[in-house]
């Protein structure tokens, strides 16, 4: 309490402001409520956006870490050669390089059969994980079956399948891949690379450890292979994730924009409250001016009132917003602690700043009006 008293003695405008606000508690309370709703709207809509983005990123998984290099058909290049693959390997410093051949073939087991994509890969372990069985380090014999095809043909590891008449023992059934992938294994069969016709490769998949590394690899591959002619086209999934991120940025701005409207409404209500209370206190303000209080001090006093309303509303609104964020993240992401991240902190600071700013801005006109009234007029009964 003594700290507060000390503050009031130092900043008399605050003392007067606090006393004036306590004069009509319901009115002050309602003005604060407006700011609380505004701050809560901005902060929680911002956090809602963050939660959406986090959820979407989780769904997308690591696709931003992969790039696909394919021959540039427009220049008449139909496949990638061993030399190209070597150059790609040299360009990629950080990540696995998996050359892929693909064809559509008839796959059968017993009396069940289907036409599906067959990928020839040397090192499928760099891209996929097994659900049942084991993926060998280098695929020299045997086949890996995607989960969809496995379900269709009722295949387990150890079974044999026939691909275009050739018989393979199934080493593993691959785990179903969620989200988007460059070479989706779900409805495919993977066999040793030599078993697929052709000398070159239809595409080379590079799997890096991070989106950043994938991007650097893409740049390096373009430099190495496309120096003289546009031999390859490099497709980065990061461009998709960047697009998605951008979309969520726009969505967030849109949500915050909606939230801001409520804060503007709150600002108008503060303007109204302050205007009413300064009109009611005309005579008092006239007395203040008569006994030697300067215009600037009157302005400071009324701005302090508006500022106090804003700070009170902002603080309560921020606390409620954190509560709402924790509830939302617990519900959507099953991770209430996801609320406490830098982006959300920014939204809260932004919302409180907006709240206080709106309040003070709304106090400006009433303050100016009160300070510029001639004391003679104000004191007239």
């Amino acid at each position, binding site marked *: 309490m003594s700290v507060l008293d000390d503050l009031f003695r130092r900043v008399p405008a605050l003392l007067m402001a606090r006393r004036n606000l306590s004069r009509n508690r319901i009115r002050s309370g309602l003005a604060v409520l407006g700011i609380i709703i505004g701050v809560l709207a901005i902060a929680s809509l911002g956090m809602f956006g963050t939660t959406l983005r986090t959820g979407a990123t989780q769904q997308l998984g690591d696709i931003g870490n992969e790039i696909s290099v394919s021959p540039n058909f427009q220049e008449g290049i139909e496949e990638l050669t061993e030399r190209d693959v070597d150059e790609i390997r040299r360009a990629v410093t950080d990540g696995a390089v998996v050359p892929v051949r693909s064809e559509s073939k008839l796959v059968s087991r017993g009396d069940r059969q289907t036409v599906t994509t067959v990928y020839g890969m040397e090192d499928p372990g760099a891209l996929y994980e097994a659900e049942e069985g084991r993926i060998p380090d280098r695929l020299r014999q045997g086949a890996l079956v995607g989960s969809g095809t496995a379900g269709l043909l009722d295949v387990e590891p150890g079974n044999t399948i026939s691909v275009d008449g050739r018989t393979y023992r199934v080493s593993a059934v691959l785990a179903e891949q969620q989200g988007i992938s460059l070479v989706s294994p779900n409805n495919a069969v993977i066999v040793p690379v030599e078993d697929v016709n052709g000398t070159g490769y239809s595409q080379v998949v590079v799997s890096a450890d991070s989106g950043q590394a994938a991007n650097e690899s893409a740049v390096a591959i373009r430099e190495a292979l496309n120096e003289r002619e546009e031999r390859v086209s490099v497709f980065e999934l990061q461009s998709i994730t960047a697009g998605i991120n951008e979309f969520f940025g726009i969505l967030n701005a849109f949500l915050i924009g909606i939230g801001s409207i409520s804060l503007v409404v709150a600002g108008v209500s503060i303007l109204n409250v302050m205007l009413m209370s300064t009109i009611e206190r005309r005579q008092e303000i006239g007395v203040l001016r*008569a006994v030697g*209080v300067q215009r600037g001090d009157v302005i400071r006093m009324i701005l302090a009132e508006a500022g106090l309303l804003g700070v009170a509303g902002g603080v309560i609104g921020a606390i409620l917003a954190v509560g709402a964020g924790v509830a939302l993240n617990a519900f959507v992401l099953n991770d209430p602690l996801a609320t406490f991240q830098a982006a959300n902190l920014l939204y809260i600071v932004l919302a409180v700043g907006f709240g206080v700013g709106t309040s003070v801005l709304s106090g400006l006109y009433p303050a100016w009006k009160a300070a510029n009234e001639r004391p003679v007029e104000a004191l007239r009964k």
Partner: protein
Amino acid sequence: MNHIIELQRVWKRYDTGGEVVEALKDVDFHADPGEFVTVMGPSGSGKSTMLNVLGLLDTPTEGTVYLDGQDVTDLSDREMTVHRKRFIGFIFQSFHLIPTLSALENVEMPTLFGDDPTARDRATRLLERVGLGERLDHRPDQLSGGQKQRVAIARALINEPRILLADEPTGNLDRATGRSVLDLFDEIRREDDVAVIAVTHDPQIGDYADRTVELIDGRIQ
């Protein structure tokens, strides 16, 4: 000259939508330190306008105002406010205390916006002097009319003014309470050498005054 305040040939005209009202007509007036002057006259005679001009709340249309020998007619709002704070104490008919502040805080109020470490002590002593030493922490609505006017007088004295301007100081008080307030004025002007100028209808103030000036239709009679 030793007049603390002086009006020379002061005119005040108001333009009220095409019609010009002359509230003060060629008024010459002065008051000396320690003097108790009453200004009497019917309502609408320009008494309040004169008090406002004396209190640097309003500027005359024509003529000159001297405060402690200095021409203060054409000061800026800021300078007028500074001079009001330094030279003039106001007392109003309806007291005009701030309802949210205690008696002590009301007395301190004119010093509140400014660094004045001794203000609290001065305010306490002034309230003791006007007989309210026991009621420092009372809010105005816990005080009687006479007590409120005493708080207002203490407030007017906090900056040790040279002039007290009172607008119907006994107007809202019963006769006995009015007398005790006037006794207080009498004491202040004697002990503090303050000029007291009171605008009033109340004939009993005349008993206390050194001099009575009558104002009718904006002219001093």
